[in-house]
């Protein structure tokens, strides 16, 4: 008897849970409402079966449970009943399958007027490419990928010259225009998924895959990788910004083409030296850092990283948090660098500074730190020298007190919580397992030995 009651309660409970659940489909933001319709049909059919069969089961348990002197009926089979049940089931299956195939037919058939955006996946970042004015994507090849040519573009291909390259996990698309996402991976499998769009597709190295949709709502959506791609899989995020055509055009015009990137002049270290005078007050004249002024060592750090951080301060991605007092001071300082060229110059100057060893200030259990560091090594390298391909800066030989403070910032959400600070967000998630002071000290003590 309790079993039957529980079965009935489970059926009712499941229905109630389903109806009341605040956890359900996100609000649709694309043309794929038909996916939701197909799903609802399946919900009705399966829901009906779930309720009917289970209630019947509960009824049998009540009605035919063992009673003294009772005896079961004898009925080996009942062909008519079995045929009926088979027929009804087949009809239900057909009812669910038909709309599914119909919608899939639309999904595999990309509209002719769809514009193309290429999403390129790598461990553990998204980058994007637009075909540019000529509407044609240039040739790419995985074997041509370098730090200077992260997209693997063919420099000889005329179609590729005006391709617009977005080296950032944020992509923009205009609202109400069908877009075909052409998908490509540099290294392992990834998957391009935005919950509100309903559709997703894997990125497969060695081939191009695609999916299409028409965004219908202006908003900013989380882009997730949904195919296991290594230990940073859960940190591989991005954003799809849907905006109206005018805003989109403005944004796109600001993004560099392949030709522009190639023609860009390198930073001028001599000019940068003059501007560095401001920095030297805290970071030291040789970029060696100054703990009392809270200025970390800069010498030896990758120029790409320095530039990204300065730009982050300038664009409000860093130093905006109210608890980040030191960072807010830095925001004021970088304002002295008028534009991107000025940043390039000062970074070029820092590149000329001597990379001297600095004294350690933090002690800890190096052995334990080494164990913990195994996770860090995936991005920052076993030698702690950083890996530009993974957008991971050098941490070996840097100011250890600064590392400690940043780890604490990441943990407390002081750094890495700005919606556009994808790299900081990543570090925040990866640093999650470093929860106590001691572990932070141990790991930094180990980094000091590198």
């Amino acid at each position, binding site marked *: 008897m309790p079993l039957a009651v529980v079965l009935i309660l489970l059926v009712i409970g499941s229905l109630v849970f389903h109806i009341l659940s605040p956890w359900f489909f996100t609000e649709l933001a694309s043309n794929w409402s038909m996916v939701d319709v197909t*799903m609802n049909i399946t919900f009705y059919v399966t829901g009906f079966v779930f309720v009917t069969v289970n209630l019947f089961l509960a009824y049998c348990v009540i009605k035919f449970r063992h009673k003294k002197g009772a005896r079961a009926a004898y009925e080996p089979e009942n062909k008519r009943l079995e045929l009926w049940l088979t027929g009804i089931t087949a009809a239900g299956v057909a009812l669910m399958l038909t709309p599914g195939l119909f919608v899939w037919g639309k999904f595999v058939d990309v509209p002719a007027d769809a514009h193309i955006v290429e999403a390129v996946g790598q461990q553990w970042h998204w980058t994007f490419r637009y075909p540019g004015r000529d509407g044609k994507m240039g040739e790419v090849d995985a074997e041509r990928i370098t730090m200077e040519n992260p997209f693997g573009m063919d420099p000889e291909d005329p179609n590729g010259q005006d391709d617009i390259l977005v080296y950032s996990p944020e992509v923009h698309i205009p609202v109400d225009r069908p877009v075909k996402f052409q998908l490509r991976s540099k290294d392992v499998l990834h998957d391009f998924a935005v919950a509100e769009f309903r559709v997703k597709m894997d990125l497969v190295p060695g081939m191009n895959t695609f999916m299409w949709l028409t965004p219908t709502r202006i908003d900013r959506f989380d882009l997730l990788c949904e195919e296991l791609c290594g230990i940073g899989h859960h940190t591989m995020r991005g954003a799809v910004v849907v905006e109206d055509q005018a805003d989109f055009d403005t944004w796109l015009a600001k993004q560099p083409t392949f030709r522009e990137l190639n023609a860009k002049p390198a930073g001028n270290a001599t000019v940068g030296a003059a501007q560095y005078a401001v920095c030297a007050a805290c970071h030291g004249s040789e970029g060696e850092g100054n703990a009392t002024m809270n200025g970390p060592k800069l010498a030896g750090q990758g120029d790409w990283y320095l530039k990204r951080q300065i730009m982050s301060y300038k664009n409000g991605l860093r130093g905006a948090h109210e608890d980040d007092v030191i960072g807010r001071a830095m925001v004021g300082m970088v304002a002295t660098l008028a534009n991107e060229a000025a940043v390039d110059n000062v970074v070029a100057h820092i590149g000329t500074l001597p990379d001297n060893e600095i004294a350690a200030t933090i002690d800890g259990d190096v052995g334990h730190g080494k164990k913990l560091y195994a996770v860090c090594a995936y991005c920052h390298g076993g030698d702690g020298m950083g890996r530009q391909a*993974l957008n991971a800066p050098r941490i070996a030989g840097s100011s250890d007190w600064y590392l400690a403070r940043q780890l604490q910032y990441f943990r407390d959400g002081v750094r890495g919580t700005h919606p556009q600070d994808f790299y900081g967000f990543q570090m925040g998630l990866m640093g999650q397992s470093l929860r106590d002071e001691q572990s932070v000290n141990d790991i930094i003590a180990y980094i000091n030995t590198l």
Partner: protein
Amino acid sequence: MSYVAYADRDHEQEHHDPDTFITKYIWSQDHKVIAIQYGITAIFVGLIALGLSAMMRLQLGFPDEFSFINPENYYQFITMHGMIMVIYLLTALFLGGFGNYLIPLMCGSRDMVFPFMNMLSYWVYLLSVIVLIISFFVPGGSTGAGWTLYPPQAISPGTPGIDLGILLMLGSLALFIVAFTMGGLNYVTTVLQARCKGMTLMRMPLSVWGIFIATILGLLAFPALLVSAIMMLFDKLLHTSFFMPAISVMGMDPGYSGGSPILFQHLFWFFGHPEVYIVALPAFGIVSDLISTHARKNIFGYRMMIWAIIMIGGLSFIVWAHHMYVSGMNPYFGFFFATTTLIIAVPTAIKVYNWVLTLWEGNIHLRVPMLFSIGFIFTFIHGGLTGLFLGNVTIDLPLSDTYFVVAHFHMVMGVSPVLVVFGAIYHWWPKITGRMYNETLGKWHFWMTFLGTYAIYLPMHYLGFAGVPRRYFAMGNTDFLPDSAQDLNAAITMSALFVAATQILFFVNMIWSLKKGPKSDPNPWDATTLEWQTPDHPPKHGNWGHELPEVHRWAYDYSVPGYADDFIPQNVSADEAPAGRDHEGEH
């Protein structure tokens, strides 16, 4: 009862009556001992995998609390948890464990046809388990590529265990396949060749049918895993490019070119989907027998049940790419595979109807095995129905790679078969050990497991609807998830830990029973099948004493009108059936 003479039938079977402890319990060739060895080993690794899942749940439910779980070992845990549960626990337990124990006893044979090969099968299996466990402790740890072991990530930097970890994993799988092939050929041959007189195919209990067809599936499907494992080993060790395309990993060129990761996926799922049924079909068969026995009624639509098993088995080979709808394979395949996948729902639904219809007008004894069986029907309906979402290619678009998938396959392939495993262990425990277990403790175990697992997996589907991806170490902040999703995750973790902890009841019960349990009747459930009719209880080596049994009827003669008892064992001839008091006359 009539028996045929010992020598009449089984001159091809080799027999060695064991005399020492070692030959009796360690290097044993007795199918019953081998079954127990398989069972204990499988449950032991299963407990390791359960421990891993507890760690994963701790991380997911309380992402800011535990510093001993980092992304590296989290991905190793999910990989090893999946691999162990699917292959080393469920496959080994159903076929190596229950297959070994039940086939000879239910078919009326003395042992497997090739007892030595049977023993070898177990020891190679044990070796594969040992290799698997060693991989946890090698430098770099075990592989963290997910149980699907997809290349390129399985052998590329960025994933844990890309050196020794993945090599040992593939080696262990190869050993497992060898062990399974030795065992599987034995099971098939025994079913075909060593049935006792009168045991036609259509008189076999459905347990044997389920195990038989599952074994055939395994024999034909495991080679696909072997092929993909060998080719991946070549890619890893010899640097061929079967699966590996030209890539740039972490800014470096590993030197591959031209291979296809999708090719691996095709091979893997050509094994992987039948594998689902390798686990499910024995469960289907066993649960049919449990329901029939404890409802005192013949299984409804026996012939349909067999044909459903065969159809499901056959169809399972042409649905594999429904795991790959969004893999980037030719999208036109989607039409074909969605259709075949949903067709497979029809024979599966028939099985469910027939279980329920068996209960109809039955005489249901709600003993522990029956509770687990009815629990199975409920969870299997749930898991089967959610499969209709994922099999339908369109609905798979939003749900693929989310927690909906995790919830679905745990419901249909984790919880459901495990409920059958427990039901079966309780059911045959008296036969295996000769002792009864504690009924109350067994019922507690059922309730906590059944309700606890439902509390884990029902809400998990809804995380999937909301878009939570699977295989995420942590979500962090997102725009699309309500904050309450984390509370739900915490609740799921609590349920999971609760269920894991309550399994202790099972072990307490079994250990208590072994030590102090009351001696059981040779046929405590009044069952008809042959294993309950052995001359010794529990059955001794050779199973049948001097004479093999002779079978006169099918396995489901329960409550036959015109007979006093509500069951007639299979080896009772028409002349010997208990004198026919007219049952109707009693009232």
